[in-house]
């Protein structure tokens, strides 16, 4: 399934946050949205996921979600959004409970996603017992459980320390390599963008417009070792964004 964003614009009251966004998210690819803080990238993701209505334009899905898909557009949140009163397994079961599945099927799905995120030993743990990295792995497992057509990742690694972030980037790269998924990945971290994105979309500061689109052809699984080349792409991105980021930093919140 492919997503097409056509002429999306949005404003919060008098403050225009997004203007004229046209973008195609091809199936099986990770599209990274980067931009200075407050440029509307999270708003755009909420619009894509149907959690917010855009003032102008629309999001179209081309083709049907693959068979067996339970929740075509599935989020991964920055602060994990795990229910603290449910165990790891309970949190994953939460998103399966309202689907018609046999007990057997449910069990298989839970086992499968726990194994893929290497959480099998933590099945009965409470979220409070887990580190930030493990919590985000649980959230990833939960997202994978509904077999999404498109994953919407909203700064998924931004709440983690840099070492954990490194580990989770490897995990995401491995997950994608083993079973490619379609994703929109919002981040302000250029390192994440060049490590995980097939296509990097640079947004300008408010109102967010598409400033540039950068494609990276190096296969994701080889990127951990492609240091110099990626560093060059990252520098290129930063050159593009630096002035914008500086200006965004000096903006007053109620502009």
């Amino acid at each position, binding site marked *: 399934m492919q997503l097409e964003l056509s002429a999306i614009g949005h404003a919060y009251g008098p403050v225009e946050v997004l203007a004229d966004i046209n973008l195609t998210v091809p199936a099986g690819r990770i599209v990274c949205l980067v931009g200075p803080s407050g440029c509307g990238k999270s708003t755009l993701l909420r619009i894509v*996921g149907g*959690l917010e209505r855009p003032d102008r334009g629309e999001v179209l899905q081309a083709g049907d979600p693959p068979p067996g898909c*339970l*929740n075509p*557009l*599935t*989020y991964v*949140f920055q*602060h994990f*959004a795990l*229910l*603290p*009163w*449910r165990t790891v397994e309970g949190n994953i079961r*939460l*998103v399966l*409970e*309202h689907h018609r599945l046999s007990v057997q099927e449910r069990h298989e799905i839970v086992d499968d996603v726990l194994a893929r995120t290497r959480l099998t030993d933590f099945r009965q743990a*409470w*979220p*409070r017992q887990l580190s930030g990295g493990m919590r985000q792995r649980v959230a990833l497992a*939960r997202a994978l459980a*509904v077999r999404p057509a498109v994953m*919407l990742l909203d700064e998924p690694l931004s709440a983690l320390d840099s070492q954990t972030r490194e580990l989770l980037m490897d995990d995401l790269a491995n997950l994608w390599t083993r079973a490619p998924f379609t994703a929109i990945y919002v981040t302000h971290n250029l390192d994440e963008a060049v490590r995980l994105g097939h296509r990097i979309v640079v947004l300008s500061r408010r109102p967010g417009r598409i400033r540039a689109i950068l494609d990276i052809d190096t296969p994701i699984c080889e990127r951990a070792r492609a240091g110099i080349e990626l560093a060059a792409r990252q520098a290129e991105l930063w050159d593009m964004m630096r002035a914008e980021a500086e200006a965004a930093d000096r903006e007053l919140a109620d502009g």
Partner: protein
Amino acid sequence: MADVVHTPAQLQPKSSAQLPPKPTKPVAFRGGGFAPRPIRHVAPLLFLVLLALAEAGTRTGVISNLTLPRPSAVAVTLYDLAASGALWQHLIPSLRRLGVGIALGLTAGVGLGVLIGLFSLIRAGLVPLVAALFPIPKIALLPLFVIWFGIDETSKYALIAFGTFTPMVVATYGAVDNVDRTLIRMGQSFGLGWWSIVMKIVLPGAFPAILSGMRVAIAIGIILLVAAEMLGAEYGIGAYILTAGSLYDLEKLFAGVSILSILGLILNFVISRIERATLDWR
């Protein structure tokens, strides 16, 4: 970049070896504190010390018998009360009033509080009303309830129910308001229905704060129980205290007050057990 790595010997700057050593002193500790921790046995010990002081004071005559009854005499009164069966004669009607009143008040309070938390229209209508009712001392309404419901049990149920209802509504909608909105968005993003979100996200998320609201409501319930029983009740702890008070029988008065205090402690303990059993995820 390997030349930046120091070996331990190099870490000591050479110049310091030649200079006379400067006087050293340890850095003074200035952290700690501001972190209450549970200390066992202090509370019972303090209680016993106070009892012993009262006992000693009344026995030696430092405290006159009109100021404070002898604790041992209060204990004997309590024992007699239990042995004669009069304790149950008073306690059972009281417990029934408290049970019925609190059950009605808490059920209505939690129910309406959840509705206020979920529906904007109900919130717009009821929040100002509840805010207007909240500060009324409910005891002042007892004569009104007697006119409405008669002097018998119903007016007592109504007073306790109404008195526990208002704090419970406020606690409940506050609890629902404070449920993390990102969890609700998460539920929506996974396609959970409205009912599922309420049952699996909103109510469990609000539950801890609802329980602590119940603690307050129950304490208010006990206060109102006594107030209701002081006005037109033949039996009940409140009636017992009122009779004792009008006769200046301090032993009986303190016996009655002790029963209330113990009742409060028991109910508090029950809530604590519920908390421990249901909130093990915290």
